[in-house]
């Protein structure tokens, strides 16, 4: 099976058609995706800013880390799940979208980041309680850059020239009509 036929098959599934052409499902999934970004992004920012000493400096890192973690995980699961569904709706277009590939590359780097810093920082936050190591500050800075890049590249997907406008009243000719945003 070639990639192209796989992408075409995905687009022909009922789920893909329902999301793409059903009217409300696409923006609703988009809305949930954004809300999950707020939840995940907010808790992620709080953790990274704590490592940088700019938020809750008087509170132990491990204390806030463990308390925020369930919410951060929930946000992550929802953002990935809705992201997969949105991608399932138009795999052919995404395959040809440069911004989508930038986003996926950044996502892979996020995974590498998590693995690299797991042992010393995120998996054992108590190690930072006596004082935040410079390695942890580097990890926080990289994390903020990576996730900001993910938001930007994700948003750019809708503006890629290769990205054909969606059928739902989105303007086919110009990206300066609010309909394409």
């Amino acid at each position: 099976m070639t990639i192209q036929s796989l992408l075409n098959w995905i687009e022909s599934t009922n789920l893909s058609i329902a999301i793409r052409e059903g009217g409300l499902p696409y923006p609703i999934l988009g809305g949930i995706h954004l809300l999950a970004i707020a939840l995940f992004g907010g808790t992620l920012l709080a953790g990274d800013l704590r490592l940088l000493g700019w938020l809750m400096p008087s509170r132990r890192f491990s204390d806030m880390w463990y308390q925020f973690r369930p919410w951060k995980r929930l946000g992550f699961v929802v953002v990935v799940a809705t992201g997969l569904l949105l991608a399932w709706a138009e795999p052919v277009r995404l395959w040809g979208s440069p911004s989508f590939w930038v986003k996926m590359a950044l996502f892979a780097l996020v995974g590498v980041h998590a693995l690299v810093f797991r042992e010393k920082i995120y998996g054992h936050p108590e190690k930072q309680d006596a004082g935040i190591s410079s390695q942890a500050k580097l990890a926080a800075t990289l994390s903020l850059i990576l996730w900001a890049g993910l938001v930007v590249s994700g948003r750019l997907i809708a503006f890629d020239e290769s990205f054909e406008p969606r059928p739902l009243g989105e303007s086919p000719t110009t990206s300066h009509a609010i309909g394409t945003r």
Partner: protein
Amino acid sequence: MLDIFRWLVNSPWSHAINSYEWVFPLVQSLHFIGFAMSIGTIAIVDFRLLGLGMRRQAPAELAADLEPWTRAGIAVMLITGPLMFSTDAVAYHYNPSFRFKMVCLTLALLMHFTLHRRAVQPDVPPIAAKLAAAASLLLWTAVVAGGRMIAFI
């Protein structure tokens, strides 16, 4: 009012944003990061008020710790939002989803700086605090959902 919107569309910054394909999505991305920062931190306080986690801190403490970042996020949101609005002000003005969002945003902001601040105080009955938290979550959800619908309506 419409005259102001037409003037906005022709303003220098509106032209600047519209001149390059990538400026609008960049401003929009900043808008997203701003609301992640503000709504994310507000949601944490709301969850605390609802008794769903973060129990080692009093709500007032948590709210005070997060408030600077909530405000920074709101500031980013309120700068990037009107910038996007000005690029196509007349069309936004007639967009029902945009109007819905503005009503919810006004209520949500009013609520944040009045009731919400009161709700985290220790002398507030828990049921009142929970109601305030639920209303806050609902309003901010409506703001985000209304915002997303603007492009589809």
